[in-house]
């Protein structure tokens, strides 16, 4: 019986909690700034469930390392708040994060955007396809699943729009990831969910078809890959170049599609400055809880 439990335990570790543990173990190593020329970290916002995140990003990072001729390590936090705090501390050499994050830490850390997807980002409000809700107003006081309270398209911008345009307040449920949001809505655990077009497009057809988009926010520049200012400009350039070169090859392109970053273009901080005027701060949740 002990053996059995042991086996079950080990199997379980491999699945969910194991990954979480691994991620936790990685985190304490992050605050140590990596010396240039030796090893660089790339932090990725946990938009998806960890396994999926690794499945998408590990090949990308490996390819990036090879092309840039740099040793780049993928760093993932278990939760978005953890990521945010790490970002604020400037723990990552390179980062893939939502533009608002970049903006919020631009004063303290000043991450420099390198590349972004040409396609803009749009937040969406989804309900079950067979939901009786026909208009946003009907959702007042209902539950809204979000990947993270501070997620740009899926939460901040959406909540701001609902508030400003429809005067609708919904009680927010943190579903931790975009996939979780969609599943929550699909199974009726929440009345509606906040997501972005790109993540919905990546869901399985079954899930996607089970949902209905009730509202779409205005467009905003997509998530950038940004570099910490401490990274030498030539290294930054090598990374930017590597991403752009990757998209020129079918194999590289296929890898980037998964992020999704269908057609990378050069990104600049100026692209994102417009968002400061949207008054999103009101909706920011500090501790992410």
């Amino acid at each position: 019986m002990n053996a059995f439990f042991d086996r079950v335990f080990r199997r379980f570790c491999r699945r969910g909690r194991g990954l979480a543990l691994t991620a936790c173990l990685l985190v304490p190593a992050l605050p140590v700034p990596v010396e240039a020329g030796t090893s660089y970290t790339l932090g990725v916002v946990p938009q998806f469930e960890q396994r999926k995140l690794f499945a998408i990003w590990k090949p990308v990072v490996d390819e990036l390392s090879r092309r840039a001729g740099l040793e780049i390590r993928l760093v993932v936090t278990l939760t978005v708040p953890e990521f945010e705090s790490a970002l604020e501390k400037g723990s990552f050499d390179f980062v893939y994060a939502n533009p608002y994050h970049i903006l919020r830490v631009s004063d303290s850390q000043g991450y420099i955007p390198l590349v972004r997807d040409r396609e803009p980002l749009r937040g969406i409000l989804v309900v079950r396809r067979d939901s009786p809700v026909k208009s946003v107003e009907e959702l007042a006081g209902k539950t809204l699943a979000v990947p993270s309270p501070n997620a740009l398209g899926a939460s901040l911008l959406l909540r701001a729009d609902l508030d400003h345009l429809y005067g609708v307040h919904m009680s927010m449920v943190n579903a931790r990831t975009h996939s979780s949001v969609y599943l929550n809505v699909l199974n009726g655990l929440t009345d509606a969910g906040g997501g972005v077009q790109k993540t919905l497009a990546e869901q399985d057809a079954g899930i996607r078809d089970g949902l209905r988009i009730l509202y779409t926010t205005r467009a905003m520049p997509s998530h950038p890959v940004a570099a910490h200012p401490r990274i030498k400009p030539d290294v930054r350039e090598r990374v930017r170049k590597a991403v752009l070169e990757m998209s020129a090859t079918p194999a590289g392109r296929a890898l980037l599609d998964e992020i999704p970053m269908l057609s990378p273009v050069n990104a600049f901080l100026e692209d994102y400055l417009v968002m400061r005027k949207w008054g999103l701060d009101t909706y920011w949740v500090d501790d992410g809880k």
Partner: protein
Amino acid sequence: MGNRRSVSLRWKLLLPLLSASLVIMASLNFVWIPRYLETQKADYLEEVDHHLDSVIEGLMPLMLSNQIDIINENLQELKKKNQNWDSILLINVRGKQIYPPMVGSALVIADHPSLLTLKKNISYLGQPVGHLTVQVNLTHWLEKRNEQHLQLIFLLVGIIVLLVLIWTAMVEGIVVRPMRRLAGAAKALARREFDAPLPASSKDEVGELIESFSTMRRDMKVYHDELLGEIGERQKAEQELREHRQHLEKQVADRTAELVSAKESAEAANRAKSAFLANMSHELRTPLNAILGFSDILRRDAGLSESQKDTLATIHKSGDHLLGLINDVLDIAKIEAGRIVLESAPFDLGGMIFDITDMLRVRARDKGLQLLVDQSSEVPRYIVGDEAKLRQILINLISNAIKATEKGGITLRMGVKRNKIDHLIMEVEDTGIGIASADKAKVFEAFVQVGSQAKQQGTGLGLAITRQFVELMGGQLSLTSAVGQGSTFRVELPVQLALSGDIPQAAKGRGEVIALEPGQSPCRVLVVEDQLENRLLLTRLLENVGFEIQTAVNGVKAVEQFTNWKPHFIWMDRRMPVMDGLEATRRIRALPGGDAVKIAAVTASTFNEEDAELTASGFDDIVHKPFRSEQIFECMERLLALRFVRVEAQAAEEVVNVVLTEEMLAVLPEDLRRELRAALKSLESERIAAAIGQVASCDSKLHKTLSHLAENFEYPAILKALQTN
């Protein structure tokens, strides 16, 4: 048989193994496996349960933090890894489905025998969070288990088959095969084959058996060899014995051959004697036939004087007596030659006794003797036997008694001795001179006359013939006698009864033939006879009656006469020169018309077998010499269907009682009695006839009696009756 036994033994030894295997297999399949399956199922479900507990532990934080996508991933993975988990359903405390994603149709927990639904409640710090339902499909699991069990059963069956094969091989090698060879050796032993190979002896019970058998066989062989040796010796001894016996047999055969040749020569001598006697009798009887015949014919001549008639009667009587003597001699000769044949026919015994005593009483009277008949009521009237010989026996004994007795009487005692076979007892007792015991045996010898009897008449053959006849009939003749006391001859004969109906009606006494009845067609008769006297006798007899007669002297002449004259009837003598009667008859029968003519033999032979020979040669009938004229006429009457004119011989008919008593004569006047006595003493026939003629006027019956006695020259009987008065 041996094969079948060995098969049966093999099965007997195999059966327990097979039965045990079957029981094990059955209990395995029907008891152990289902129970094991249940236990395994319980174990399996417990394992799944524990597994689910662990899963729930992992799900709890994810549920609390709404990480539905991780839950989804985890449970999807879990389901992928556990293929027999048909469906997993995770519901939160509000009853909302967390897993699986509600895509397409809603998940339905189906109910199926092979589907097992496990429902686990999830709670955190005592607060219900939701529940996890897993439906486990046991089909695959069951299939797998069944496959394992099947493999187990196959393995077991394989082991059993292997065991059976090994067991069979062992039984075959250790028991059956040695037993079969042992049985073969035992069978061979039964056929006395001692060297049939025995199976190799093993160190077990079978081996012991083989050893014992081998020892037994060795002992038996020794015993058998000894026995064979003994048998050989015995056979040798037997062979010697056989040779010895053959030698003895040869000796006996030689002796027998010698004896046979001696017997044959003796028989040849005897046959020669018999032939001589036959010839003699023929030679003697032929002239006698003429004497008797002619005297008979002459007697019918009315022109004869009384004196001549008396003389003729004397001649006839003497001839008759001579015929009796010759007959006696012939009888004894026939007996000695073994040519006597016993007749067997029913006859009237009572009548015969009456006739004999009636006849002999006269002779007894002549000698002044009394003849008494003492007959038991048991004596049967009709019996089966040889009448003629029995008659002769009685006549001989009584005549003999009359001869031997001078004074007193003779008694004939008849009785029956009842036994298994009834015996007829006949005793003839006389009051005569008796016979000395020394002579008793000689009395019955042929040609011997005893003692003082020498003076008596006769051939002395009477008693010898009598005894021979009695013995021939299967009886006994005994004699009790003392000199001066008289003798008693006793005859005991086995008797067979007959009924009166069996007795043929005796030919009625018919009158003398004097002529052929008129109106009948003339009848030609050929007389074939070599001797003149006999030829004349027959010719005269037949011519007197009215036949046409021709004669022939031998066979050749007879055949010629037959061809020329065509007679209706032929009297044929048997013995003739040139050609005898047999040959002549055969030739005539072969000629045209030869089968129509009637031929009768006239023979002097008295041997029965010669009669048979005559019949076979084609003769219609046989008449023996000397014949009576009536025999001749009767024969022709029968064969030719003729009718004769007869004259009734009344006198002969009426004289039934020829016994003359004193009382009968007492009625006569004294003169007549005196005259009669004188006439008788004078022996003058005419005078006697005249005297008897006078009696007729007094008593016609007495006249007839006296006439009869006188005609028969019984003068002494009459004189005796007269004398007493």
